[in-house]
Each structure stands twice: as structure tokens, then as C-alpha cells.
């Protein structure tokens, strides 16, 4: 008798499981673009990132196949606690599946923890900290577009190989600046260059003259700017006033196309730096950028960060399609995303490493002279391409706990 009951129970259990598996073919997806809508990254990411995510949803073609995909955006105001709370609220109240963008490293890391706790998907495009795929990596996070290691390594190696083999650093005096200087130094010494000296400046300095004069008198071929944001722009402008760019080469270690626009080609010409995307790179990027610019504010082409949001969202949706439904289980979706090779017209073919690092080629660019620029946003000359397998932190050097089996 008890056997019969056990069989009956087992039968019911199997039936229930099959039913719930069918119910798992849920085709609702919610994507949150957590970005900077009001501060210094509003042009770099901001509303443009939301547009990029929407375009990815349209291009995925899933809506025609009966999926419901919502994209909403929020402003983290550069405050980690606001960003983390907003993310938490999105998961608790809105049943969010995926969060993307998040420029500003502090906020990016805070959101990283929330997404892991809530088992969501986190595709970071705007945040630069390489901690996301090292000490603080999680099974829910993919770091898509760039990181500080990639930019420092690309500029350090490629520029040294192109003849700029002696360097002088202007470093912002805090942990981030030192990290940039350290990563670049490692890259350039490995490529056969040497560092002749460095000087630290306080954060948010308005007068760089004494630092620039030291850099000028050092006689180094390249002056590396291991700083960020307003400091980098100010250094570049003041270096132009001193006529430094005539004799020496300026290399910014963290700079975006929107910074070049705000500095202007007059002052920025000759400047070298690394990015992973430029709108005028090939036919694929041009075609996408044209479509994008028709809808963006001020007809601006996508920045690297916005392109990353598009590409990451598209790959996420491809993974969901391959799974046949949305399991609302972040770690599972991310595992699927890592399994599938990535391919889109913006970043080309690539893959996602086990630590969550998306890899693709990086490019060393030089800012054009005003006379060479033929159109608005025609700013860059491609100097060198760093292949995907070399551009990012080698896996054996990553301190990510997911790699330890």
C-alpha cells in the first residue's frame, strides 16, 4: 500500500515539476539603466545609455516574438548609497532582471553587491574599476566595455612600441591615480620603455604649471596623465599653453570622446589614449552610429560606454532567447552569457571570461589636428590595435575567487 502511495506522490511531483517548467517560459524582462543623468558623466553615459539599451531591445527582435521588455532609467547622483538603494528598490519593487551602465566606480561596486544579493544580472559598462573582475567579482556581474587596467595597459604598451619609450607621470595623489601609474609602468617596462620620473598632484588642482614644468624639463618623450575627469582636462589645456605638445607627447590614461569635445581639437591635438570603441572605426560601427545619432541628443554619435550598454544588452537578450524564456535567475543567465560567444557590429567577435570580463580589442588613438577633422566628432586617428587576448588582465593574474576551483 505504502508503495502505491509513494508512486502516486512521485507521479504528482513529476507532474508538478513539468507544469512549473512550462510556467518558467516567462517572457517578461525588465532592464534598468542606472546611470548619471545630472552630473559629469551625463554626456558620456546618461540618457544616451538609455537610448542604447532601447535600441538593443529593438534590434534583438524579441518583441515581435512575443516578449515584453521594459527599459527604465534612474540617476545615481554619484552617491553609492543612492545607487545601491535604487538598485535594491528596483529588485524588490519592480522585479528588475538586469541592471546596466553605472558609471562611477564607487557606485558600480555598491551596485555589484546588491545585484549579487538579489541574484540579478549586472552588465557594467560605465564603471572603470578593475576590482569588478578581480577581488570583488561575482557570478552575477559582467564587466563589459573597458577597465582601468585595459586603458593603462593599452596606452603603456602601444605607445612605447610606437617609439615613446621614456615616460614621466603626472599622478593624482590618491589610490586611483597610483593604481593607474602602477599598471601603466608595468606595461611600458615590459614593452621595453622606462620611467624617468613622476610627480604627484593633489586632487582637483586648478594650477598645474609647476608639475608641467617638471614634466617638460624631465626630457621624457611621453608625459603620462594618471588622473581623471576635470584634472585631466585641465592638465591638457595647460600643457597646450606651455607648448609641451610640440616636443613631448601627452598620453591620457583615462579619457573619453566627450572630454575631447569639451577640450576642443585646438588644445587636444596630438593627445594619445586608449578606448575600446570609436564610432568611425569600421562599416559596422558607422552604420550603428548613424542610426543612433538620428535619435540622440544633439545628434551625437555613441560613446564607448553607450556602445557597451547596447552590446551588453543585446548579448543578454540573445542569451535569454537561447534559454527560451526568462528564468529570473541572474547567476544562471550570466552563466549562459559566458557560454555563448559574443558577436555584434560594435565590438566585433569576442567572449566573456569566467571572471566576468568581456574581452575585445582595444585601440590606441591619437587626436587629430583641427585641419584633419572633416566632420563633427571626427576626432581620432587609429595608431595601434591591441588584440583582445592581450588587452585585458590575463586570467592567471586575476584575483577573482570564481577562478579558484
Amino acid at each position, binding site marked *: 500500500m505504502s508503495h502505491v502511495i509513494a508512486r502516486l506522490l512521485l507521479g504528482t511531483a513529476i507532474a508538478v515539476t513539468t507544469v512549473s517548467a512550462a510556467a518558467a517560459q516567462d517572457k517578461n524582462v525588465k532592464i534598468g539603466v542606472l546611470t548619471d*543623468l*545630472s552630473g559629469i558623466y*551625463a554626456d558620456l553615459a*546618461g*540618457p544616451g545609455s538609455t537610448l542604447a539599451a532601447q535600441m538593443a531591445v529593438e534590434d534583438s527582435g524579441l518583441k515581435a516574438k512575443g516578449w515584453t521588455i521594459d527599459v*527604465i*532609467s*534612474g*540617476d*545615481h*547622483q*554619484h*552617491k*553609492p*548609497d*543612492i545607487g*545601491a*538603494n*535604487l538598485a*535594491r*528598490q528596483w529588485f*524588490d*519593487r519592480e522585479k528588475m532582471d538586469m541592471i546596466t551602465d553605472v558609471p562611477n*566606480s*564607487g557606485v558600480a*561596486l*555598491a551596485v*555589484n*553587491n*546588491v545585484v549579487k544579493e538579489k541574484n540579478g544580472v549586472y552588465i557594467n559598462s560605465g564603471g572603470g*574599476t578593475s*576590482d569588478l573582475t578581480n577581488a*570583488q567579482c561575482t557570478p552575477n556581474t559582467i564587466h563589459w566595455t573597458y577597465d582601468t587596467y585595459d586603458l593603462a595597459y593599452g596606452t603603456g604598451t602601444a605607445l612605447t612600441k610606437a617609439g615613446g619609450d621614456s615616460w614621466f607621470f603626472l599622478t593624482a*595623489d*590618491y*589610490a*586611483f591615480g597610483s593604481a593607474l601609474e602602477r599598471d601603466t609602468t608595468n606595461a611600458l617596462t615590459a614593452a621595453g620603455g622606462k620611467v624617468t620620473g613622476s610627480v604627484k598632484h*593633489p*586632487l582637483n588642482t586648478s594650477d598645474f604649471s609647476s608639475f608641467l614644468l617638471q614634466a617638460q624639463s624631465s626630457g621624457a618623450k611621453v608625459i603620462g596623465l594618471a588622473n581623471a575627469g576635470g584634472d585631466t582636462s585641465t592638465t591638457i589645456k595647460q600643457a597646450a599653453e606651455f607648448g609641451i605638445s610640440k616636443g613631448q607627447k601627452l598620453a591620457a590614461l583615462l579619457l573619453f570622446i566627450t572630454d575631447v569635445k569639451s577640450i576642443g581639437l585646438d588644445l587636444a591635438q596630438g593627445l594619445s589614449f586608449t578606448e575600446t570603441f570609436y564610432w568611425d572605426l569600421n562599416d559596422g560601427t558607422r552604420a550603428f552610429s548613424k542610426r543612433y545619432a538620428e535619435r540622440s541628443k544633439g545628434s551625437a554619435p555613441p560613446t564607448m560606454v553607450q556602445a557597451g550598454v547596447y552590446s551588453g544588452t543585446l548579448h543578454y537578450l540573445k542569451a535569454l532567447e537561447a534559454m527560451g524564456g526568462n528564468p529570473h535567475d541572474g547567476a544562471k543567465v550570466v552563466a549562459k552569457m559566458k557560454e555563448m560567444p559574443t558577436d555584434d557590429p560594435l565590438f566585433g567577435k569576442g567572449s566573456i571570461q569566467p571572471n566576468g570580463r568581456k574581452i575585445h580589442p582595444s585601440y590606441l588613438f591619437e587626436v587629430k589636428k583641427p585641419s584633419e577633422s572633416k566632420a563633427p566628432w571626427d576626432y581620432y586617428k587609429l595608431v595601434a590595435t591591441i588584440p583582445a587576448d592581450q588587452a585585458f588582465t590575463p586570467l592567471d593574474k586575476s584575483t577573482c575567487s570564481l577562478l579558484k576551483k
Partner: protein
Amino acid sequence: MTTITDNSIPAQTRGTKDEMIAFVIMTALLVAVPFSGLYPFFVMQALCFALFACAFNLLIGYGGLLSFGHAMFMGTAGYVTAHMAKVGTIGFKLPLIGEFMINMGPLSPELSIVFGLIAALVLSVVTGLIAIRRQGIYFAMITLALSQLIFFLYLQTPFTHGEDGIQGIPQGMLFGLFDLSQPITLYYVIMVGFLLGFLIIFRTINSPFGEVLKAIRENEPRAVSLGYKTDQYKLLAFILSGVLAGFAGSLKVFVAQNASLTDVHWTMSGEVVLITLVGGLATLYGPVVGAFVIIAMQQYLAGFGQWVTVIQGVIFVVCVLTFRRGIVGEIAHLFKRSL
């Protein structure tokens, strides 16, 4: 005229009675929050800022001292609490003597908070001794300068992780009993912490010490002529305010699970001024209401992007132009009550 009538009846008891009734109502509302459908994390965040603003209000509203660097106490206590809860090491590097290191491992929430409070205490004693020697704009500028000093210190020291901040702080078990990773438990713990801090301020304001503070605010030379050592009173108020602001910072660590430079930045010191002015300066409940208004704006208007700051600015201007006493101040004035 009103002052005469106010003084003729025992104002103390009447005012306290109103405040007690309001306290009971506030407590009842807060206890009911988890059943109301309000988002508990929002309320917790607001409560931390409310306590922070109440501590700030103790100094400006009742002592007449505008501190423009109060974020340093909140941020310091937050950083120390976060560090203790996550890592739990104290390391010193003394020139000539050498290095020493105490490793206690990750500490429990209550001990981490105690360390945070000690840090805020030490900082407020040191900064208080320097700052209270001056009044008015000079006091504000000195506190601002000191908090900027502290900001750059935290930008540099390794334990704060610079602009990345301390992330992923374990919430742990309070007293080994309460699991803070449960939102409801965490909410009630934060609520009790807030009410505790609020009661301390309530008691302080309605004590003889509070009366002397108000006397100093109204006319310091007269208070001196009556034989009060005003510097000592001001220092004590400054320390009390600093430690309570620190307590708010320590509690906030367990809500947000991170400690970052935002909390020591001068804009945070500005925000607490805004909260207090909108709610009502020198009213007991003003900062609480102000905190809910401002935090609600930051949270619920986040979708409006750049308009948040504009809306905040407009509200500030409207507040200063039309209801200068702040929300609670105007209500109290209208009903001739003390709130």
C-alpha cells in the same frame, strides 16, 4: 507680548507635553511602517538622515552654532564602523617607534558601532576645541576647513579604499540575537537606534543644560555675565552633536552596506543644512520631517535626472521666501504649539 505670556505660564511643561504627544505619534507611525507598504529601505535611510539632522539641529537650533562640516562626524563613524565590521584591524605606523597592528577580525555590529562612536567622539573633541573659539561665519568656516582636511585624509588613507569606498559590509548579528540581513529586523533595529538618539536630544534640550545653551544662543555676553563658562557648554554641545551625528553614520552603514566619500564630502554638510531648514530650524521634529522630504525627493525623483537638483533648489528658495520657519516651524507657529 507672546514672550511675556509664554513666560508667565510654565512654558517648560506645556512645551514638553506637546512634544511628548508628538513623540508617541511618531513612534506609532514608525512601528507601523513595515505593515504600510512603504519601502522599508527608504524609511531606514531617511531615519539615519533624520538623526543626523537632529544632531546638527541641536548645535545650530539650540546652541546657535552653524557647523558647516558636520559630515565629517557622520563619515568618520561610518568608515570606522564599516572597517570594523568588515576587517576589524587597527594598525599604526609611528615614526621611530615602528609599526604595530591589532587584529580583532570582523567585529559584531554593536562593537563596530562602539568603535565608530569612539572615533566620532575623539574627532569632535579635537575639532570642537579648535572651532568653538569663534562664532558665526568664522565658526562655520573653521568647521568647513576641518571637514575638508578630513575629506582629503580619507581620500588618501588605505583603509577607506579612496573613491571606491568600503563595499559589501556584512550586516551580521546584533548582540548575537538579531539577524540584520532580515529587512524587518534591520528596520526595527534602526528605528530603535533613531528613537534612542532622538530621546537623548529631546532630554538634552529640555534640561537645565539645554536652557543654558539657549541662553548662550540668545546672548552670549549675558550668559557669561551670569557666571556660565560658555565655552564649556558649547564644547559639550558640539561633542554631543558630533557623537550623535556619528551614531547616524554608524547606523547608515548597516542600511546601505557601504561607506564612501559621499558621506564626508562638503555637499553632505550642505544637505543637512537644507534638511534642517526645510523641516524647521530649532524645532524638535523639523529635522525629521525635513529628512523624509529631502530623501523622498532624492529617491522618488531619481528618474527625473538632472531635474532633482533643480527641484531641490526651487524648494529651498520657496522655503526661505515663504515659510521661513520650515514645515514644522510653521505648523507649530500656526497652532501655537511647541514641536
